[in-house]
């Protein structure tokens, strides 16, 4: 598909508790001509039904469960359970393969590679990857791609000031590249996966981390 063949009207559902990353994604997609509908990351079925009544087909789902902002209440089971629930509800209206298919992305965290004082976030992040790969295999024949953006907690996240985990000599991961990772960087990477031209890319994880993931064996 070339630039001139891109569909003109695209609808994305952004499921998020609200974060700087979600705001940046909505702005980035809006600038690119998407219509973005924001819902809670664990929405009431009625909320989704109302949304589906407004649109004939959904082109993209961005699931952003807030892992990059930390929080003690994050639970792997809840995080993947909500994603599966939202996908199941949206599934009948995801744009069919004959019309270019649909894109699903999950916003995850570099913490999925392991981090001493955030095992609950690491578990949720790793689970998101495993679920996304499974969904990619499940939905691939329908032309639906499922990918993951796993980011370093970006500039502005409270986790950037988390400091040294208690009882370790480790420091919070920093990008190897000169500039900090920003919510806009995560949004740009998300937009790439959501693009109609990314239809042959599925089940993948892109780390938006300035190279901070490279020192883990799990990152390849």
């Amino acid at each position, binding site marked *: 598909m070339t630039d001139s063949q891109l569909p003109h009207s695209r609808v994305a559902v952004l499921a998020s508790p609200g974060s700087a990353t979600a705001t940046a994604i909505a702005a980035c997609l809006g600038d690119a001509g998407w219509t973005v509908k924001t819902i809670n990351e664990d929405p009431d079925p009625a909320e989704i039904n109302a949304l589906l009544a407004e649109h004939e087909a959904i082109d993209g789902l961005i699931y952003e469960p807030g892992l990059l902002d930390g929080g003690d209440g994050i639970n792997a089971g809840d995080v993947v359970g909500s994603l599966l629930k939202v996908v199941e509800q949206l599934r009948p209206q995801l744009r069919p393969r004959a019309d270019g298919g649909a894109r699903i992305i999950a916003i995850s965290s570099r913490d999925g590679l392991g981090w001493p004082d955030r095992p609950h976030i690491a578990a949720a992040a790793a689970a998101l990857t495993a679920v996304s790969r499974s969904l990619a295999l499940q939905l691939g*024949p329908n032309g639906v791609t499922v990918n993951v953006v796993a980011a*370093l907690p970006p500039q502005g996240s409270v986790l950037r000031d988390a400091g040294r985990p208690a009882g370790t000599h480790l420091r919070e991961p920093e990008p190897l590249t000169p500039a900090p990772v920003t919510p806009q960087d995560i949004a740009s990477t998300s937009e790439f996966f959501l693009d109609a031209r990314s239809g042959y890319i599925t089940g993948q994880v892109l780390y938006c981390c300035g*190279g901070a993931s490279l020192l883990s064996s799990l990152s390849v």
Partner: protein
Amino acid sequence: MRLNGKVAVITGAASGIGLAVAEDFAANGAKVVIADIAADRAGEAAQRITGSGGTAVGLGVDVTDRGAVTALFEQAEAEPGPVDILINNAGISIDRGVRRITDEEWQRTIAINQTGVFLCSQAAATSMIPRRTGRIINVSSRAWLGWFAQLAYSSSKGGVVSATRSLAIELAKYGITVNCLAPGLIDTPLLRREPQEVMDRLLQAQPMGSLGAADDVAWAARFFADPANHSVTGQVLYVCGGKSLYAQPASS
């Protein structure tokens, strides 16, 4: 994602994925250097791009020859200018099982697919480091994960993945990102030479049940080449329709 005025050297660019990348980059504002072992076909490809309003030059290069690689970068620097983007795409695939592959076939595969990446990346990095910016994109293959009768090819492409990660770590502080594309089944002239029976088997192993297009890879290359994309480095992106997730073995 526009590449206005950026100089991109693309090896193995006279056909297939390399040509698709060159055409895509030129259509999006880049000045492309089509480098290929076949100098005449590189020139023809460059002429076609120039005829469509793009900026391109075609140059012959053997990526296994240090002198030829040095000459390529000197010529590129003179016209169209210092290299902003390098696409290490030149490669060969010799499909032979472990009992049949010869020393010469093994050495040739490693020389083109792996040493070529080393020589071109070294030349590009030397030019990019003082300017504190640059994009290097290596074309590996999903096959680096392993596949039937691809001992030499997958070994060489695994080396490309390792090179990508080491280059990314070393060059990050200079604002140079290094990423890797790992295409799966892509509809190229080389693949079309396969008998239908083989094609059917290959497609059955595909989770999405389809072939990719060279344009799919070019689009991913443009994402990595984007000057604004400074936080994604050292990544291996499979453009493979899900084959990297699971591929049902259909032959042995």
